[in-house]
Structure formats: structure tokens, C-alpha cells
């Protein structure tokens, strides 16, 4: 079942097609739980954090279900909440603190293994995934939403609240950046 074809939020009155609010949330989780947690992971790059953020996303979906507008599908609405929550987390002071601690820890753990050597040791596919996840956030999110989440440019513009031409430009630049990095890595 795709919620894209269910009645839109403008008609919400506490239940959808006879579903209680809780059943509605369970349905949302059935459809998007892994997609949300993986999308969150692409932002925070930490499994535990991604799990926490995904839980928070579903709670927010439940709390703000009245704010869902019929202009977009449920999928883009859920993704938009995920992206905003992840960005809020990345902007928070606590995250910056943890990030600095994390970097210090990692630099002590494997000082001899350079990023270049790591890429050589991995397969080409893994190297591609690594490079995608290393892209700057504004390119990374567009590349991942387009290729990984397979959203259209229009849908991405709804999720990120940006105009379509901007999304196309970011997509193009992200691709070029990635191509240069892959060529450099060979």
C-alpha cells in the first residue's frame, strides 16, 4: 500500500480510512522505517544517532500530522521531516562538541592509515559510497535523495524547500565533484 494514494491530510479528523491515529502511525512506520533511518544515517553517519533521530521523526509525524499539506506526497513529507531534524541536530552545539571529540578519537586510533590507502583497499563500489558520504552536505543530500532515495527533482525541491533549478545545479556540481574525486582516487 502506498500512502501517496490515501486521502490527504486536509481531510484528517483523527483517523484515516477508519484507522485510529496509532494504526496510522504504524502504517507510516511499516512503509518508511528503514528508509528514514538510512536517510538519517547519511546525515549523521552514526548508527545509534540515526536510530534516535528516526524515532524522533515518527513522533514528529504523529504530533504534526495536521500540518501535512496535500501539495506533496506522504513520502516527501516524511523525508522533509527527517532532513530538517537531521539538519537541526547537525547545527546544534552538542553535535559540534561530539564531532570534535570523535575526530580526536579517530585520529588517535589509526594514524598510519591514510584516506587514500583506505580507498585503494576497498572495492570500487565501496569507494563510491565513501566518496558520496564525504561530499559536502549540500551536494551529498541532493545526490542521495536523487540516486539513493530515487526522488524526482520536484520532490527533492519539496523536501529541501529549494527551487528546482537550484536542485539541478547542486546535482550537477555534486556529480562533477564526485567524478573528480573518483578519478583522483584511481
Amino acid at each position, binding site marked *: 500500500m502506498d500512502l501517496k494514494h490515501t486521502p490527504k491530510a486536509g481531510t484528517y479528523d483523527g483517523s484515516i480510512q477508519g484507522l485510529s*491515529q*496509532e494504526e496510522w*502511525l*504504524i502504517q507510516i*512506520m511499516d512503509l518508511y*522505517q*528503514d528508509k*528514514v*533511518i*538510512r536517510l538519517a*544515517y547519511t546525515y549523521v553517519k552514526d*548508527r545509534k544517532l*540515526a*536510530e534516535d533521530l*528516526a*524515532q524522533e521523526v*515518527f*513522533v514528529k509525524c*504523529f*504530533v504534526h500530522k495536521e500540518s501535512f499539506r496535500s501539495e506533496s506526497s506522504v513520502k516527501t513529507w516524511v523525508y522533509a521531516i527527517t532532513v530538517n531534524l537531521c539538519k537541526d541536530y547537525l547545527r546544534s552545539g552538542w553535535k559540534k562538541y561530539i564531532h570534535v571529540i570523535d575526530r580526536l578519537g579517530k585520529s588517535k586510533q589509526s594514524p598510519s592509515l591514510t584516506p587514500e590507502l583506505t580507498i585503494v583497499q576497498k572495492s570500487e*563500489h*565501496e569507494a*563510491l*559510497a565513501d566518496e*558520496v558520504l564525504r561530499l559536502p552536505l549540500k551536494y551529498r543530500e541532493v*545526490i*542521495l535523495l536523487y*540516486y*539513493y532515495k*530515487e526522488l524526482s527533482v520536484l520532490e527533492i525541491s519539496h523536501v529541501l524547500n529549494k527551487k528546482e533549478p537550484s536542485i539541478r545545479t547542486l546535482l550537477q556540481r555534486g*556529480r562533477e565533484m*564526485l567524478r573528480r574525486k*573518483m578519478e583522483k582516487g584511481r
Partner: protein
Amino acid sequence: MEDPLKQLPEILNKGRMKNITFHDEHRQKVLKKIRQLNRPPAPKSWFYHWFHQSLSVAIGVAFIFIFIQFAQSIPEPLEQKEAEHAAKIPYANQAILTKARHDMRNYHNVSGIDAYQKGDLLTVHIMFPDNLSYQDQVNLSESYLKEVSRLTLNEPYEAQNYLGELWNYVNVKVYTVSANYDLLAAKLQYESNFDWLGTIEKEDGKLRWEQISK
């Protein structure tokens, strides 16, 4: 050549994303959270209500008390100005005026004398006997004013120039009339029907006389 990025879903889902899944325990946590959100708030204990209401009353009373204190501490501008103005003007003491009047009646045969102060103006009405010369009237008036001035300020008589420090603050008008004149009538219309008007300048304290009628 095929775009390698098109393989990204497969690469990520089978690679590093393989083990990143939303477990049942996470789902239960979400459901627990939303049930807590929907749960009506637990009824508060009687102690909570008592404490809350007492605190509200205490804060309210404290606020009113502070407000009243604050309001009282600010005098009204007009009242303050009047108070400052009044403080600058020394008042001729009524007891002193009475004593001076008594002296004038007993020792100088002055039948009628009255004095009163309003603001910074001391008005004196003196009714001399008919046989008293003009110079005697002046001397007696000065004597009366000196007595009033000296006793008012409670300063040594020698320290006062002319009629004393009191006249630096108070204007004085001395009206003299003949003996057969009605003093009450003179008080009521004192700008006319009297013989002499004496005034004292604040700056020099000198008594000056001018003949008004006749």
C-alpha cells in the same frame, strides 16, 4: 557509459546500510512516546494545589506591597514644588506677632494693630493715635518690625542689618491709619483710605514710606 551513481541504492543497501534497520524495540519506543503524549495529565495532589495557591497569593501580596511602597515614594511634582517653596519662606510666628501687638498697645498707646502672613507677604495694619507725629509713626513701625524680625529668627539683634534677615524672604506692607479709622474696614480695602504705606525691599531690608491718601 552507464552512470555509476545509478547503482548507489544497491551499493548502499547491500553495503554499509545493510545492518541499519529500524528494529521492533525502536517502534515500541515510538508508540510508548505517543501514548504518553496522548495520556491526560495525572491529577495533582492536594499539596500541589495548596502550595501553588499559597505561592500565588504570597507573590500577589508582595507585588501589591512593593507597588504601594513605590507609589508612596514618589511625591506628586506640584506638591513637592509647593513644599520646597514653603520651606524657603520663614513664617512670622503668630505668638511673636501677638506679643509685639501687646507691647505696642501697652507701651506705645497704639490702639489697633494686626498682622498676618500669606505666602511671602507679611501685611501689617497699624492704627496710631491722632496726636502722634509722622516720624514717631515711622519709628514705632520700625520698632515693631524689628521686634517681629528678631524674635522670628532668634538671632542677636546686632547681627541684623536694618530690619533683619526675615525680610530677605518676606515682603512687608505696613499700613497706618488715624485713630478714628475702622481697622476692619482698612483690612478689607487696604489699598485705599489710609495715610501711609510702608514697604520693605527684600534686597536692602529698608523700610520705605509713601503717603497714599490726602
